C-alpha cells in the first residue's frame, strides 16, 4: 500500500492550485474559530444560568403580582385565565399559587423574659416551590404546632438594623429556630384559638411568612372571613429568568417581579447577538471554504485526468484512488479543526482567568458541545470531500 501511494503521489500532483488551497485553509480556520467560539460562548452562558451558584436558588423562582397603581387598588387579584396563560408560556416550567390568610392572626412571646407581640398574616405555597427542606414542615388537624418559614431578609433587618437601634441581642438563624412562641387565630366573632409556633427555616426565595398549605387551607376554612379567595400573587419556576420573552410578557401584562432577578435578560440579548453574528459569519465562511476546497479537489482531479484514466484502465479501483485522494486532502482538514479547537481552548482558559477576577465563574475547559460541533463539522467536510472525489473518479475506462 505504501509503495502504491508513493507512485500515486508522483502521478497525481496536488500542486495545481496552491493558492486556492491556501485560501481554503485560511477560510476554514477562521470559520472554525468563529463557529466554535459561538458554541462555546452560548454554553458558557448556559452554564452561568444553570450552574450551582447561590444566585440560582432565587433566580429560578419568580414571585409575580400585578403592578399596583392608583387604578387597580383593591383589585390586584389574578384570575384563573390569567394564571393559566402564564402557565402556558414557554418560559414557565411550573406555576404555584400563593394563598394568603383570610383571617386575623397575631404572634406573641410565650416567655416573659423576651416579650413581644405583633399582628401578622401568612401565606402558603406548594411545597415544591420551597427552598427549605425540613422534616418539621408538616401540619395536620391533630397538631397543635405550626411551623413557619420566614424570609432570610427579615432576620437580617432585625440583626443589622433593629437590634442595634433598640439595644437588643443579635440572633443567629439557629437561635431563632429554637424560640417557641404563641400563634393566635381570631374568628369573626373575636374568638381566639391559640397554638404553638416556631420558625423552622429561612427562605431566600419567597419574601413572605409561610405556613404549610394544609394549615392554611384548614385555618382559612375555620376562621376565614368571606374575603376574596382569588390569589394576588403566584410563583413561577423558570429555567432562565433572564429570558427576554419572559420580561416582555410581564411588561405587556402589567405584571411585576423582582427586577434584580430578570436583569440578566439584557446580558442575554447581547450574548445572543454576539453568538448569532459570530455563528452566522462562521457558517457562511465555512460554506465558502468548503466550496473552495471542493473546487480545489476538482481542479486537482481534472488536471490529472489522463493519469487517473490510465490507472483505472490498468485495474486501479475507484476505491483505491478515492482513498488515496482522501489521504491527500483530508488530513489538512483534521489539522485545521484540531488547531481551531486548541485556539478556542486557549481563549476559554483566558476568559476563565479574566472572569474569575470578577467573581464570574465559568469552566476553564471548553464544553462538550464545542467538541461535538467540531466533530460534526469534521464529518461534514469529510463527507463532502468523499462524495466529491467519488463523483469525479467513479468512471470505467
Amino acid at each position, binding site marked *: 500500500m505504501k*509503495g502504491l501511494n508513493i507512485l500515486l503521489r508522483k502521478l497525481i500532483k496536488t500542486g495545481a492550485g496552491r493558492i486556492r488551497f491556501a485560501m481554503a485553509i485560511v477560510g476554514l480556520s477562521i470559520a472554525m474559530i468563529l463557529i466554535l467560539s459561538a458554541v462555546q460562548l452560548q454554553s458558557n452562558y448556559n452554564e452561568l444560568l444553570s450552574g450551582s451558584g447561590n444566585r440560582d436558588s432565587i433566580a429560578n423562582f419568580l414571585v409575580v403580582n400585578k403592578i399596583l397603581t392608583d387604578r387597580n387598588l383593591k383589585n390586584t387579584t389574578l384570575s384563573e385565565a390569567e394564571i393559566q396563560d402564564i402557565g402556558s408560556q414557554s418560559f414557565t416550567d411550573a406555576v404555584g399559587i400563593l394563598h394568603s390568610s383570610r383571617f386575623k392572626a397575631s404572634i406573641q412571646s410565650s416567655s416573659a423574659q423576651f416579650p413581644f407581640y405583633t399582628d401578622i398574616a401568612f401565606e402558603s405555597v406548594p411545597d415544591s416551590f420551597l427552598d427549605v427542606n425540613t422534616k418539621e414542615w408538616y401540619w395536620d388537624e391533630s397538631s397543635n404546632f405550626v411551623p413557619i418559614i420566614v424570609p432570610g431578609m427579615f432576620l437580617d433587618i432585625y440583626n443589622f438594623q433593629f437590634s442595634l437601634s433598640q439595644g437588643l441581642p443579635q440572633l443567629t438563624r439557629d437561635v431563632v429556630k429554637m424560640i417557641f412562641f404563641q400563634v393566635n387565630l381570631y374568628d369573626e366573632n373575636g374568638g381566639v384559638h391559640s397554638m404553638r409556633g416556631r420558625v423552622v427555616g429561612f427562605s431566600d426565595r419567597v419574601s413572605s411568612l409561610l405556613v404549610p398549605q394544609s394549615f392554611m387551607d384548614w385555618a382559612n376554612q375555620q376562621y376565614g372571613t368571606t374575603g376574596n379567595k382569588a390569589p394576588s400573587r403566584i410563583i413561577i419556576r423558570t429555567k432562565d429568568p433572564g429570558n427576554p420573552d419572559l420580561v416582555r410578557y410581564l411588561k405587556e401584562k402589567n405584571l411585576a417581579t423582582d427586577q434584580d432577578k430578570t436583569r440578566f435578560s439584557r446580558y442575554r440579548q447581547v450574548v445572543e447577538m454576539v453568538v448569532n453574528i459570530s455563528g452566522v459569519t462562521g457558517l457562511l465562511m465555512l460554506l465558502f471554504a468548503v466550496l473552495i476546497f471542493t473546487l480545489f479537489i476538482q481542479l486537482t482531479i481534472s488536471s490529472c485526468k489522463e493519469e487517473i484514466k490510465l490507472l483505472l484502465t490498468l*485495474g486501479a479501483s475507484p476505491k483505491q484512488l478515492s482513498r488515496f485522494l482522501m489521504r491527500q486532502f483530508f488530513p489538512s482538514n483534521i489539522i485545521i479543526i484540531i488547531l481551531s479547537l486548541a485556539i478556542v481552548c486557549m481563549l476559554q482558559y483566558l476568559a476563565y482567568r479574566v472572569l474569575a477576577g470578577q467573581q464570574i465563574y465559568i469552566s476553564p475547559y471548553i464544553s462538550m458541545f464545542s467538541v461535538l460541533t467540531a466533530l460534526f463539522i469534521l464529518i461534514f467536510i469529510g463527507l463532502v470531500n468523499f462524495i466529491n472525489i467519488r463523483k469525479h473518479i467513479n468512471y470505467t475506462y
Partner: protein
Amino acid sequence: MAGLFLWFEKLIQAMTISLHEVVPVPLKEKLLQQVSGIWNSDIVFTAPEWIKIKAPSGTGKTTFIHSLYKMRTDYTGIIKWGERDINSLAAEELAVYRQQKISVVFQDLRLFPNLTAFENIELNRVLQTVYCEKERITEMAQALGVEHIMHQPAVRCSYGEQQRVAIIRALVQPFEWLIMDEPFSHLDKTNAGKAAALIAEACKERNAGIIITDLHDDDHFAYSRKFIL
C-alpha cells in the same frame, strides 16, 4: 450437495471469455459484407487456451481488444467474462477482474511518461495483493535486455524498449488471461523470441490463457486455436 459440487467446479474452473454475435457499431456496414472468424459468431475461449487472432489492417483488431477488455462498449451482442456480461460490471468489480483475472498489453503501450520504466512496472505489481517479488522485475528486465533503462522516464525510452516494459508490466500481476495487441511490433526476431519465451513461462506458471492479435502469421507460441478477424 450437488449444488456445492457445481459451485466448487466453477471455482476451480478457469474463467472463460465468450463472445455472442458481437459486432462493433462503427464497423457494422463493412462487416456485413465480409466473412469473419470472430465478429457476429458465438465463440468461447477457455483458459489455458492460447489463441492467435490474425487481423489484416482495418478489420477492427484494436476495437476487438478494447471491447474484450471492456474499454469500449460500442458494439452489439454480448461479451462475457465467465458468466458475467461485462457490461453489467460495476467499476469496483471491473477493477477486481483487471487486477486478478485479465492482464493486457496495448498496442499503444500506455505507459506513464513521467514515471521511470521501473516505476511503471512496479505500479502494476503493487496495485493488488502482490503476486511476485520486486526482484522479479529486474530479472525479467535482464531477460529482455532492458535493465539499463529501468530508471529512465518511460518517455525517454525507445518504442522497442517501451514495448518490452509494457510486456513486463503485464506479467507482474496475477491473471487467468493475457490479452496482447501486436506485442512484438517493434522488436526484432531475437528480442521477440525472448519476450515470447518469458510470456509463455509466465502463462504456464499461472495456467493462463493467451489471446494475441497480429497482422501476420507467427509461431511465437504453441497456439491451440487460430482465428482470422
